[in-house]
């Protein structure tokens, strides 16, 4: 069975690479206070593709770089408006184990605590305990929310603050972001109509997950006023 996350990638895989007659992507626009994170080459490639193909459909979008444990948030026009460190699933891999979204957290083995790669339509919705979260992949219970600090032994805040991405793998699959980033960037962008989440792979080739992303490379470095 093909997951909903993979379906768009498969559709795009049918397009011959380089066949598009569209012009080269415009340089990535960045607001002055978009955060200190530097986009990696895969982030630039996916950004260039999204903006050039207008794959976000006029909605805000986020790109999560699992390798760098960093999130980049863009407004509907493709301007980078913020970046921050993230915590992601402790299990390495780009897929979700079948049925993992319906398991109790305590029954999910470490190997299945993955943050799946792919393109997702992200939207605010209810979760258990009547709380609202930004659902990324509802079927597999992957959401984006402020960092959880209920278990002190996990040292999640310290992990977010440390400069190395190596210790940012601690969650059961969800994406944790700093509270200020969630309130100041994610909620204002996604609360009205939702948006698109692109979670970059760490094991599979980028072109396998986002086939059309190999068409264009983005450019970076042209700041704009907020």
């Amino acid at each position, binding site marked *: 069975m093909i997951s909903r996350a993979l379906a768009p990638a498969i559709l795009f895989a049918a397009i011959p690479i380089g066949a598009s007659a569209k012009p080269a992507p415009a340089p990535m626009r960045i607001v002055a206070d978009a955060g200190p994170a530097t986009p990696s080459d895969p982030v630039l490639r996916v950004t260039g593709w999204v903006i050039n193909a207008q794959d976000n459909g006029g909605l805000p979008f986020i790109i999560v770089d699992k390798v760098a444990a960093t999130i980049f948030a863009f407004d509907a026009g493709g301007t980078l408006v913020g970046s921050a460190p993230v915590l992601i699933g402790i299990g390495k891999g780009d897929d979700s184990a079948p049925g993992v*979204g319906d398991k109790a957290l305590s029954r999910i083995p470490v190997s299945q605590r993955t943050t799946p790669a792919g393109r997702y339509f992200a939207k605010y919705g209810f979760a258990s305990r009547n709380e609202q979260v930004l659902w990324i992949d509802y*079927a597999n219970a992957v959401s984006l929310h402020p960092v959880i600090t209920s278990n002190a032994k996990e040292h999640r805040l310290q992990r977010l603050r440390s400069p190395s991405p190596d210790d940012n793998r601690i969650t059961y699959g969800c994406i944790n972001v700093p509270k200020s980033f969630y309130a100041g960037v994610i909620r204002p962008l996604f609360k009205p109509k939702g948006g698109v989440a692109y979670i970059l792979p760490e094991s599979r080739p980028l072109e396998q997950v986002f086939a059309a992303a190999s068409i264009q490379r983005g450019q970076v470095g042209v700041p704009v006023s907020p």
Partner: protein
Amino acid sequence: MTVLGTSMKLAVVALTGLSLSACATEDYVDKQIATVNDRITALEGRVGQVDQAAQAANAAAQAAGSSAQQANQRIDALTSRVDGIEQRLSSKRPRN
């Protein structure tokens, strides 16, 4: 007088030979040019066909890209609806 006559005869023979040789060379060149022209005409026809095929392929690729984008947006809308229905039935616990 005899020497002059002989010289004139030799000159006439030489000129005739040269003239005949020149005619043969021009004919040969004309044939070669005609052959090349035929090949150029044939190639022009093939280039035209390839160009048409390339344009058709490009148009098809663009149409496919447009269709894929439309399909993506329909999937987005459907995903949102399905998730909404699922959430009404039972709210999941996020994998914190």
